[in-house]
Structures are given as structure tokens and as C-alpha cells.
């Protein structure tokens, strides 16, 4: 995100704090897709993810006056989304937060082994990315897709910066293990 957009996000938040619905529409239009995707990767349910973004932006409407601008608005949005997603997961009785359950609710399409049989390494890699644990998934998404710095990830996830770095390293190692189990060697590790 450019510095100009970050500054203009701040202005939108200030207007939202004044009750400006148009500013809310602009902010929503700018960020809702990324917020939805981040939430969907965490809750793995489109309906829940849609409900989630309504809740996230309603929180923004209510809390805009308290936003101090110490982080980027996009970072603030992702932090709210994560909090709401974890709350939604806790509410769902049929979902557990451990790795095993996360892997169990994978979609019903090809598993990594089948994808390799199709000789499609990229697809297998995407399958393995989906098979990561929730905490590994979120850190991979935040760094690669949402382009968040070490400091921003630390703020969103609520962990120290060094933990952010080591967690991503071990997420990548787990990804390599899943690929290896699927018969794919990439030269690392």
C-alpha cells in the first residue's frame, strides 16, 4: 500500500468518526475483498466470512473515533478481522482449533498426492498451503498476500517480532514437509 493511500485511509477514518457514510463506503470498497479473504482463510466458511466483514466494518464505524493512527488502517482492519474470526471459530461447536481438525475440514477436491499425480506442482503447493495449521496459514497470508512487515504482523497477531520471524520459518518448514510427503522436492530444506 502506498503512503498516499495510507494517509487517505486516515482521513476516511476521521470522517467516519464524524458519521460520514460516504467515507465508510469508500473505505469498504477499498478494503473489503482483502478483509474477506483473510477472514475466509481463517474461518473456512463463506457465509461466516461474509458475516465477519459486516461485523468488522461495523466495528470500524463504532470505533473510528478511537483510532489513533499509530498503525496503518489496513493493519487495524486485519487485527479486528482476526479477533472476530477467532471469536466466530470459538462459537462454532463443530470446529476445533487444533491442526488435526483444521486439516479435517479441507475441501473435498484433490489432496496434495493426487495433485502431484497430475504433475501440477503449483497446485500441490496451494493444497499444502491450505493444509497448514491456522496459525501457520495466517502468518503466511499476512506476509505474502497482505504484504505486512514483521512489526505489522506482530501487531495483528499479538506476538513478539522474533516470534513472527521464527513462526513463519517453521510454517515454511512444515510446508516443505507436506510437499515432501506428497513427493515434491524443491531443494529446500
Amino acid at each position, binding site marked *: 500500500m502506498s503512503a498516499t493511500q495510507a*494517509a*487517505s485511509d*486516515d*482521513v476516511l*477514518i*476521521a470522517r467516519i*468518526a*464524524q*458519521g460520514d*457514510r460516504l467515507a*465508510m463506503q469508500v473505505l*469498504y470498497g477499498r478494503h*473489503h*475483498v482483502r478483509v*474477506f*479473504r483473510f477472514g*475466509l*482463510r481463517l474461518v473456512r466458511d*463463506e457465509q461466516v*466470512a*461474509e*458475516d465477519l*466483514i*459486516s461485523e468488522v*466494518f*461495523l466495528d470500524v*464505524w*463504532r470505533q473510528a*473515533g478511537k483510532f489513533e*493512527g499509530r498503525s496503518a488502517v489496513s493493519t487495524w482492519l486485519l487485527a479486528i478481522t482476526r479477533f472476530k474470526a477467532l471469536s466466530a471459530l470459538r462459537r462454532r461447536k463443530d470446529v476445533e482449533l487444533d491442526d488435526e481438525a483444521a486439516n479435517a475440514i479441507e475441501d473435498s477436491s484433490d489432496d496434495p498426492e493426487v495433485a502431484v499425480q497430475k504433475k501440477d506442482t*503449483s497446485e500441490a*503447493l*496451494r493444497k499444502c*498451503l*491450505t493444509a497448514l495449521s491456522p496459525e501457520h496459514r495466517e502468518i*503466511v*497470508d499476512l*506476509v*505474502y*498476500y497482505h*504484504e*505486512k*512487515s*514483521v512489526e505489522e504482523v506482530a501487531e495483528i497477531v499479538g506476538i513478539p517480532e522474533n516470534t513472527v*520471524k*521464527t513462526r*513463519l*520459518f517453521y510454517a*515454511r*518448514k512444515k*510446508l*516443505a514437509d507436506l510437499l515432501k510427503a506428497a513427493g515434491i522436492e*524443491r*531443494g*529446500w*530444506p
Partner: protein
Amino acid sequence: MMAVRKKMLEQEPSEIEMLLPWHAAGTLNARDARRIDEALARDPELAKQYAAIREEYAETIHLNESLGAPSARAVQKLFAAIDGEPARKPSASLNISVRVAEFFASLSPRTLAWSASLGALALLLQAGVIGAVLMKDQTAPFQTASLSTSEPATRALGPEAPPRALVRFAPDARVADITALLDSYQASIVDGAKGGMFRLQFGNRAMAKDEIASLMSKLQNEKIVSLAVATP
């Protein structure tokens, strides 16, 4: 070779290794990015790992982009909820920093450039005015010991200052007469008429005591001068 690599992985990863994903995403600061570029250039194992990271990076983006977007239901639900919120009065206590940000965000780059130029000019003028005021208010009769090519390299301290006197002119003295007297004595008025007295300064060099006495005596004898008293 495999054993060495395996051993490396069992050890704690290095800082450079851990920062590689941020390098791929382009979110490192310039200093760290340079450090990593240098490390990648000299370490083929690290470069191999970086290639794997770039694959992960590309596929993570691909995966997220394939997730689609929410339906219109989400935005409808949001604004229905906002409609149900209590009406909000615009507050006068809008954060001052946001007001400033909003003001500058509303200016075009050209306007901003002009404003910056005018600001710089205003600063220069302000510096000039402050300098002038300081020089004017500097009443203590001393100069720094720096070399001046137009004046003798001497320091003018209190006792060596040009002589001064309080002078009262005769009530019938005309302005032309006073001006002529000031010219003939190379004198200038340094302070206004307080109680009918003017403070005059004579010449621009210090004088000996007898010279000052002689000057006062001569001045006292002028027809248009009713009183002349030497002052420090």
C-alpha cells in the same frame, strides 16, 4: 552434503534466513534488503531457499486471489446495521493531526510546492527581522574582536566611547540653528527631549577629559544652548 544441510536445519535459523520471505514480498527496509541481496549473492544454498520462497509467495497470492469476493449481502447487512446505530453529531474535537492531514491531502502537489517555497521565504524574512531587532537592541558599547578592513582593529569599550552630553536649547532656538550647531560639532541626537533635554553624542572617537571639558565650555557659550552637561 545432505547431512550438512540437515544439520543446518536442526540449528536455529539465521536472521537472514528468517527475513527472506519479507525480502520476496518487498517489505523490508533498504538496509535489510541490501544485506540479504549480498548474502544471496555469496551463498548458493540461501539462493536455493529463496527460490523456493518465491514459489510459495506466488502461490499464496494465487490461492488468495482465487477466493473471490463477498456478495452484496455483506455490504447491505453492514449499512442496515449502521442505519440502526444512534445518529452521530459531528464533533468539534476532531483530532488535530487528522485535520492537518486532511488539509494537506486536499492540496494539489503544485500548491504544496508553492506553499513550501513561501514557507521557506517567510522563514528567511523572519530570520532577517530577528537579526535586525537584535542588532538594534544591542546597546552595550562593545564590538567583537574580529578583524575589520574598514575600521581600525580596536575595541570600543565604555570609557573609550565618544563623549555625550545632556543639552537644553534656548526656547527661541530655531530648528535651522540647532541643525547647524549639530553639524559644526559633528554631533547627533541619541535620545529624545526628556524634560526639555537632548542627549547628544559628539564625533565618533573617544576624547580625553580636558578635551571634553573644553567642548562643554564651548557648547555652553553657544547662544542657542542654555545648558550643556557632560554625561557618561
